[in-house]
């Protein structure tokens, strides 16, 4: 089953082509990585999918319907959640409120219910809080509900961002470099968390990652972007051996000289 599909996706910033004719197919329940050198257009791809950028050409389809140019909040409501390369939490709010805001589309009561605190309001709020606490426990933040988000340590902030994204009950989760700035131990835990997202919650993962060990370790499929173009796609094994990929990463001439051994083998991480 195809969950997300882009075809001929193109995005220009003035003269710069950030994405050129990108075709991407993400299978349901896959962990699909997008890699590429700095400025390759990976984040731009995320921004197009989530509706924050309107592509200049091409189509994006989610669960079979086109979402090209759809408003970001509507895209989110369809079940696409994301995290950010530079953590973007609601910094002055409590950890719990961060997640509760993620639950926004799933809380149903009218303004009048809220003003009068009707049973309907109470039920919905209590259910929301329970779900939020459960999500925090899932990512390992139980007991930190009333910390101010900005006061969490770095690794916890990354987890909170994921918990908040999960609150949307997404079918597809876009993770933009979730292990950036983490030490090996934290990275290890993050890998485990990402696996659990897919295995326990059935969420499809689209992952931007610079750490090759992580990519080779958990990806089902890897797509490689370079200067906005898709230059390779396949299993980690196939991508690792692709001369164009090696060239993109190591510069021209490297493909013949150094060979595939420079990219780590799966399971090595």
């Amino acid at each position, binding site marked *: 089953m195809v969950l997300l599909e882009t075809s001929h996706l193109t995005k220009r910033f003035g003269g710069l082509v950030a994405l050129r004719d990108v075709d991407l197919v993400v299978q349901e329940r896959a962990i699909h990585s997008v890699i590429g050198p700095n400025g390759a257009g990976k984040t731009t791809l995320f921004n197009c999918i989530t509706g924050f950028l309107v592509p200049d050409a091409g189509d994006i389809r989610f669960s079979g319907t086109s979402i090209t140019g759809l408003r970001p909040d509507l895209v989110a409501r369809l079940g696409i959640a994301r995290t950010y390369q530079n953590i973007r939490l609601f910094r002055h709010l409590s950890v719990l*409120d961060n997640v509760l*805001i993620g639950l926004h589309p799933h809380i149903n009561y009218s303004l009048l219910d809220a003003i009068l605190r009707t049973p309907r309001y109470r039920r919905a709020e*209590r259910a929301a809080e329970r779900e939020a606490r459960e999500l925090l426990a899932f990512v390992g933040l139980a007991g930190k509900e009333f910390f101010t988000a900005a006061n969490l340590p770095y690794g916890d902030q990354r987890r909170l961002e994921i918990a908040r994204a999960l609150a949307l009950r997404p079918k597809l989760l876009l993770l933009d470099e979730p292990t950036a700035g983490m030490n090996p131990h934290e990275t290890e835990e993050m890998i485990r968390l990402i696996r659990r997202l897919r295995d326990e919650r059935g969420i499809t993962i689209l992952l931007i990652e610079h750490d090759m060990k992580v990519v080779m370790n958990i990806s089902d499929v890897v797509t490689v972007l370079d200067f906005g173009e898709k230059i390779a796609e396949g299993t980690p094994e196939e991508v690792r051996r692709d001369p164009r990929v090696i060239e993109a990463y190591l510069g021209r001439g490297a493909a013949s000289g150094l060979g595939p051994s420079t990219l780590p083998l799966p399971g090595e991480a």
Partner: protein
Amino acid sequence: MIVRAARRAIFIGLVAGIAGWHLSLVGLIPAFAQRRLVGDTLTFSYALLIALLALAAFATGRRYPGAAQRIPWGVLSALVSSLMLFLLALLVTHLNLRQILLNATPELARVLTFGGGASGAGLVRLLLIGLLAGLFAGGLSALPRPWGRVIVSAALMTLLLGLLRDVLGPLLPRVVTSFLYGTAGLSLAGAVVTFLLATVLFTLRWSLRANAVTARATAAVPATVRQPVIQALLLLILASVPLWAGLFLSNVADFVGFYILMGLGLNLVLGFAGLLDLGYVAFFAVGAYTMAVLTSPEVGQRFTLDFWVALPIAVVTTVLAGLLVGLPVLRMRGDYLAIATLGFGEIVRLLVLSDWLKPYLGGAQGVTRIARPSIASWRIDSPQEFYLLVLISCLFAWFLSVRLRDSRLGRSWFAIREDEHVAQAMGINRVTAKLSAFAIGASFGGLSGALFASLVGSVVPASFSLLVSINVVALLVLGGMGSLPGVVVGALALVGLPELLREFQEYRLLVYGIVLIAMMLFRPAGLLPERIHRRELEEAVEEAREIAPAEIATGRG
């Protein structure tokens, strides 16, 4: 090391001295010399000068860890400031600057030197007071934890009581008044007793709060009992204001109420949703003018409505105005939003002022003969009676603010305030969120304006100047953005106090400026900052039956 510390101390002393020059030459110091606070000697301007010297010492000293450095460097700063003040006294005595600087009079020299004049005696007196102020400030900051704060609070309390002599005097029992107050300001004995009582009070409050036993004792009374009791008591006190407050105080209370209403309204827009609206007065004006046009026989001619019919119409009109302002500025943020809304405020003022709309809105003369409310045969006429109406409106606005804050709409406002982009990625429709903030926030302002028009009985365009908007923003900043008690404190401090202190009227903006700068420097989050928002205790109790005990413990943490 020493050279650098000395240079810093002298610099701060000079800055404080220049501040003293400024306050003197704009006339604030000489004007405040008329007001005696304690006995016959301590005038308001002396208190200010001493505070200035102490502040210089404090600002210098707070950099250092121990009293051994704090006190000497602080004293140095205070002495430098004293010298600066003396220099000004010399200048105004020996040079005739009155052509340029209206307030550079020999009288100023006397005030600046604490009565000693620009002579050796004055210099000695000034330096002595500088030394004492420096020692006092240094010593105070060297005291263990609560004492410095307790003493400063008690001193401020005493000064405030002295300032409010004319207001409080008639309210208190005669025995108390005659003991507490002299011919002007507090009597010496009154001041000492007040200071001691205040010290005891603040100490008690601090130790009660810090004390684990009392904390457990209060926790033993369930929140479901404690909260309603406290609320009922507060309500009783608030509702009794017209009984003991005279005409003047009730009038002031009404105006504070109008600003509390506006503050609560702008708090939804600025405090909760983070949208800087500098034209909030527009909503106040729309509410006031709607009430005026609908109930006054002077304009429109065709009909007059009853107050109670006009009131909801005024509120609904303001909601529409809120949407009208909100729509075009949806995409704007920060500075651009501030400028655009500023424009809206001015547009409304110019519209009501215009000759073009004069037949409908009265032009520069405004509208008079606006209806007062009446219930059955009871005509709500005096400020005392009106107060109840204002109080009910404020309570209602507060209630709505709390309920909205704890709802998903409130959370969506917080999200927009924190990060609009991410809020959208969380499925929040920013159009609905922003427009609802503008509309509901506007409605409080409209309610305030309608009540204002009815109480005053007339509206003129001059009442709806930019200053009103600035006042409302300032009271939010002072109280703490997003904090509901902060709105009340801000309104009391920025609207209530100046009304009570006639000297402040003329220097209102100057004092505002000083207060806001001081806030930004020392308490950027406001006097009563919005705490990290927690669910109501009552719900935590309900929750207790459903989740594991371990989780409750952390939830309270």
